[in-house]
């Protein structure tokens, strides 16, 4: 048991100490700096005033934020057990790589003579685009498929947003996200090793993909915050701003099913779900109709299964009161 606890402690620590993690202290510091600067300039606040706003106890000590913390810890425990049971990107890549030997369209090693930089840049860019698109796609499906929405409500039930909200995911969602990651990484790795051989590499900064490092370094953690950092309109048509993601969390029906993207806004524009940021005051959460969902941490984990069961059995009349929400 002490070994398991040690494992959990190491895992939790890594969330804040590894540059590969969203909650890395360096990225949090960047987000804090950008957030404070934005409040000072845009809201004409003093630094003290800006810090008071950023660290408002009404947000950080809210019931929703405390639920975030509880879910974060519970999920770390759950996934310490679940993760080893799930397929890895290496298994996917190995399977696909071997399968690629049985086709002629993409000959093995066809591009192995190209320059290292071309191979590494191609790989890094391709993975970034495919990864971002697949995140968009899965997110889109989580909203559009009723059964998946039952589980995605877990994330949208947050009524205050802090960087920790990014980890507020139902375990079923978590499994889906891990499988997505394994699939996308496996496909990309297999394809590029097939074509470029040992020339393939990932362009990194501090061991992290250069694109992801830039994304996080430029304040990705503000997406889950109350700092409505907006980009110029033209830029928001390319990159999703924190304010646009906050709009995605809005409980206003006019904002439902908008801005599914993570880094790039082009996917939303292609599928008609793009929405620029607004100056409107936005409140977050599922709304009064779903009040029962966040009755307790337990209900957040359990009720999606109840709702799913009732959907599958067609007995929706017995769904928990006020649990349904039209999207």
């Amino acid at each position, binding site marked *: 048991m002490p070994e398991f606890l040690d494992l959990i402690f190491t895992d939790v620590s890594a969330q804040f100490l590894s540059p590969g993690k969203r909650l890395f202290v360096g990225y949090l510091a960047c987000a804090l700096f950008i957030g404070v600067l934005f409040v000072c300039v845009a809201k004409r606040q003093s630094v003290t005033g800006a810090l008071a706003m950023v660290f408002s106890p009404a947000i950080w000590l809210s019931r929703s934020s405390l639920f975030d913390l509880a879910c974060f810890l519970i999920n770390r425990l759950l996934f310490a057990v679940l993760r080893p049971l799930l397929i890895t990107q290496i298994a996917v890549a190995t399977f696909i790589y071997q399968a690629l030997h049985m086709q002629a369209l993409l000959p093995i090693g066809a591009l192995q003579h190209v320059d290292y930089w071309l191979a590494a840049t191609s790989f890094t860019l391709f993975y970034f685009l495919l990864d971002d698109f697949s995140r968009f796609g899965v997110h889109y499906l989580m909203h559009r498929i009723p059964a998946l929405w039952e589980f995605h409500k877990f994330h949208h039930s947050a009524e205050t947003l802090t960087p920790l*909200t990014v980890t507020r995911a139902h375990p079923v969602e978590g499994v889906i996200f891990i499988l997505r990651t394994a699939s996308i990484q496996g496909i990309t790795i297999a394809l590029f090793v097939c074509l470029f*051989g040992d020339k393939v590499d990932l362009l990194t900064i501090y061991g992290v993909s250069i694109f992801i490092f830039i994304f996080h370094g430029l304040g990705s953690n503000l997406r889950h915050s109350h700092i409505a950092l907006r980009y110029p309109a033209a830029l928001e048509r390319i990159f999703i701003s924190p304010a646009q993601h906050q709009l995605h969390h809005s409980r206003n029906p006019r904002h439902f099913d908008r801005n599914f993207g993570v880094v790039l806004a082009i996917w939303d524009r292609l599928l008609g779900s793009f929405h620029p940021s607004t100056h409107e005051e936005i409140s977050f959460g599922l709304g009064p109709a779903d009040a029962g969902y966040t009755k307790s941490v337990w209900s957040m984990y359990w009720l999606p299964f109840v709702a799913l069961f009732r959907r599958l059995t067609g007995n929706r009349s017995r769904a928990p009161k006020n649990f349904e929400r039209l999207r």
Partner: protein
Amino acid sequence: MISNKNITACLMLGLLASPALADNHATNNAAASYGPFPVTLKSYSGEQTDSVSYSGQIGRQLLHTSLKKAIATNAGIDTLRRYFNGDDGTLPILDPVSSAKFRVDHNDVNAISRTNLSDKAYRGSIAGWPGNLSGRQMLEQMLTRAAAVPNGYDAKHGYDYVQLVSKFTMGGVFYHQACDNYLDEKLEAGNKPNNKPYRDGAYYTGKEHSWDEAFGYWGAAAHGASLTAQQNYAIAKKKDMVSADANADGMVNLKSEMNYAHAYYAASFDRGGNTNYYSIITRAFIDGRQIIADANGEALSDTQRNALMGKARVICANWERVIAEAVFKYAGSVYADLAKLKSGGDENTYRAYVKHWGELKGFALSLHTSSQNLGELGRRIDGLIKFGPVVGGVVSADITQNSRRVSGVDAAGTFTFQDASVDEYMLYMLRLQQVMEDEFGVVAKDNDRLADIANLAEKLGSAEGVEND
């Protein structure tokens, strides 16, 4: 085959026997090198003081190295047979020979031991080579074919007999004799007992000499366990006279100061830092010999014999894994060679490819020759490697044109061909590496063709796997 669980258990035992616990050995008065060990035979009254003796095995090691050299230097079939079957006259040691930087103490195999390889070659059937021959017949046939082509290189069929003969001799004679005979049958209670001489007139007991003979086949220098992997590797490569010359007499004693055969391969894998095969196996030999010496010429008790058999299991499990590491390594080499040849490799690339395939095949066939029946696994391995590498049907080195491979041998003894696919064979090499990893638990994994995948996966990580945007 020995299962992964057994291998793990044996490795654990092996680690306990490793130099990392040198203090323990010191307190138990365990030897630091393989010999000398006292004469314990009660009935012996002569002047011998050291009961260690494995000259016959060193003689065979030198027959092997010389035979390999003879094939590579275009020797005729009579010469090759002299090294395979032995010869009563002078039998020059062709490798290693003395040089200014590496002086050896013998130049005649028969001055060390008048012996042969053929009598000790594996008698079982070899399904992975055309003709369904026994191990001995296969080697005899290979020598005949080797003598018929320049320097043992048959470009048409993709056979490098230097490598095929060498690697299978190491397995089909040395590994086979050690792990299917001396460390297996001869450890049984009633076989070569420790309270009787190995043979009439001998100054060593049955168990002492059985164990010594297995050590001789392993091929490690007696003091090798006290050296680094790099030093042991350099000794085998004849590049480190200082490390080899344990008694500082200015000569490398070919009986006790040289590394041969699988011991050399173990050291080469250990240089990577992920394995410790050489030390684990050699220390298990030393510790086992100490158990026998401690019996002081009495028949081994059940406890002593069980301890000895435990050492034998450590030795053979790790020895098997050394061979599997070699299969893994050369499967990776063959894969890389095929990739080069596909994109327009030249004759030199093809020559290297054939050499690597010969090494792969020789090591893979060796896995069949221990006391463990590989069964279905053996058929899988043979099925992946096939009877021959993919060669070109027009020009051998142009493997993409009319690709084919040896499929068997006809009644006249001529190899037959069948169509083959380069890409499919590359896939088989990947699968072979996977089999070596899954079934034999290889760790060193030289030339890992899936390493690029693992490296990239590690770089990408799964950092945001459960993050929700």
